[in-house]
């Protein structure tokens, strides 16, 4: 009631702005909490896979650990390296986290639950995830440190290469869905688990997911921070909250690419079987499932060598995706076209 009164009394421009900000908060705050707990689960899961327990001291089962970590980072000093470019040094974390959050504007959580239902949603997401590389490059350059600079160079080359393969896998999805709108892509997959695009586009799904791991600079593609060679890569010189923001962006990006994979290949909020109702629960379950793989990969694979990463991206993924796109286009002209819609 009170809310309604406020909205009717204000001029329209204010009420829509306020309403939009509230909606943005409703996405960003749960996202921040998921990021915090993703770090907790990462430490627990990797610990379990290494025969350890992981953090279990702060709160029941260590559940307050991420909060303790956040508090610690907030009270730490942000050190500015001498001769670093102060403005760019502080701008870099902002440039990293802003696109990571901005991309969430077009993610449909449910048939109705979407902040802005734009037609070129997929393009928007691709654009936003590409901008994130600027944060890394600027961080590496502004730090005035050779390790940071090497890290940012590696990261830039890697993200740019894998973006191509990733873009091509999305072309396959577009051909199946006939739409760039994420909501319509999901609705195109309705009718049970067999209608999901993962089946006709299985190689593309695998390549998308591996590219997503590379795109977010996660193990085994984490040469950008390769602690054994270049200390901590582009964020060596960062401490305190500035470092935390980089961390936040990395995990927000992980959740984002898992969310996109769930939407485009695994039917988003649609339930796998007809007798269960559709809903956001399914989407969250699929995202959690994919995120587990990120942690699993990190616990399993050793880091790729730099030239191996480049070879995988350019000489293997791009040819395979192009081949499969042509194959899908060819199949669409045959009587089997129903399989690809």
């Amino acid at each position: 009631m009170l809310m309604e009164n406020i909205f009717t009394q204000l001029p329209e421009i204010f009420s829509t702005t306020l309403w939009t900000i509230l909606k943005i908060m409703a996405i960003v705050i749960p996202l921040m909490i998921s990021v915090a707990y993703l770090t907790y689960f990462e430490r627990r899961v990797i610990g379990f896979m290494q025969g350890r327990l992981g953090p279990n001291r702060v709160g029941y089962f260590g559940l307050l650990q991420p909060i303790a970590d956040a508090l610690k980072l907030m009270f730490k000093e942000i050190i500015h390296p001498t001769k670093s470019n102060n403005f760019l040094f502080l701008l870099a974390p902002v440039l990293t986290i802003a696109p990571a959050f901005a991309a969430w504007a077009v993610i449909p959580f449910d048939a109705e639950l979407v902040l802005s239902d734009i037609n070129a949603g997929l393009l928007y997401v691709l654009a936003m995830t590409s901008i994130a590389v600027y944060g890394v490059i600027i961080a590496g350059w502004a730090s005035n440190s050779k390790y940071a600079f090497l890290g940012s160079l590696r990261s830039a080359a890697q993200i740019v290469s894998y973006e191509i393969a990733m873009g091509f896998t999305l072309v396959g999805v577009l051909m199946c869905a006939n739409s760039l709108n994420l909501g319509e892509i999901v609705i195109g997959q309705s009718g049970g688990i067999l209608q999901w695009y993962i089946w006709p586009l299985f190689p593309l799904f695998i390549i998308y997911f591996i590219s997503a791991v590379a795109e977010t600079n996660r193990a085994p593609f984490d040469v950008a921070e390769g602690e054994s060679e270049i200390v901590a890569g582009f964020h060596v010189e960062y401490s305190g909250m500035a470092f935390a923001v980089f961390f936040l962006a990395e995990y927000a990006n992980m959740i984002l690419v898992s969310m996109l994979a769930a939407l485009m290949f695994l039917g988003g909020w649609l339930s796998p079987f007809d007798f269960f109702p559709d809903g956001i629960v399914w989407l969250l379950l699929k995202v959690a499932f994919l995120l587990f793989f990120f942690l699993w990969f990190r616990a399993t694979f050793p880091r790729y060598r730099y030239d191996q990463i480049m070879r995988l991206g350019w000489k293997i993924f791009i040819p395979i995706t192009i081949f499969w796109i042509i194959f899908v286009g060819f199949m669409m002209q045959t009587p089997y076209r129903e399989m690809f819609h």
Partner: protein
Amino acid sequence: MDNFCWVYDANTISGDVSLKNMFKKIKHYLKSLTLYELIIGLGLTGRYFFSKKITIQYPEERTPQSPRFRGLHALRRYPNGEERCIACKLCEAVCPAMAITIKSEMREDNTRRTTQYDIDLTKCIFCGFCEESCPVDSIVETRILDYHGEERGDLVYTKEMLLKVGDKYEDQIAKDRKEEESYR
């Protein structure tokens, strides 16, 4: 020449395209494209995810200790309350880190006793030579491993402190000595 070879053998490098070699290549391609080895690796870590965890949660759980464990030092007494140490200074002499300082004088009953017996635990390397050299089993190393000092000098243990440790843990110390008796 391409610096990457799909199959590392002499035939590939010499450019031989025999049938056997081709099968090898095809097998290799299939193995890579199905991510065969990566899946094996994931299976291994996946199994470990459910394995028994070997972490010992320290303050609540402890690893088993040997009766020969060499931890914090203690000075022992005889059952009648008389201190064992006779100030022979063998421990002081044998100590490789020179962590022991002893001063002695004659007591009223004409026996030689220490007036000062300090062990600087910041110097001590816990070799156990002092215990081995002691003819009366006075200086011993106990099983205590978690002690600390809060200020500079807190870890220089005096005679009183060492005797106190001995009094407190005498039961355990005596039990451990008894157990090891036949090997000494």
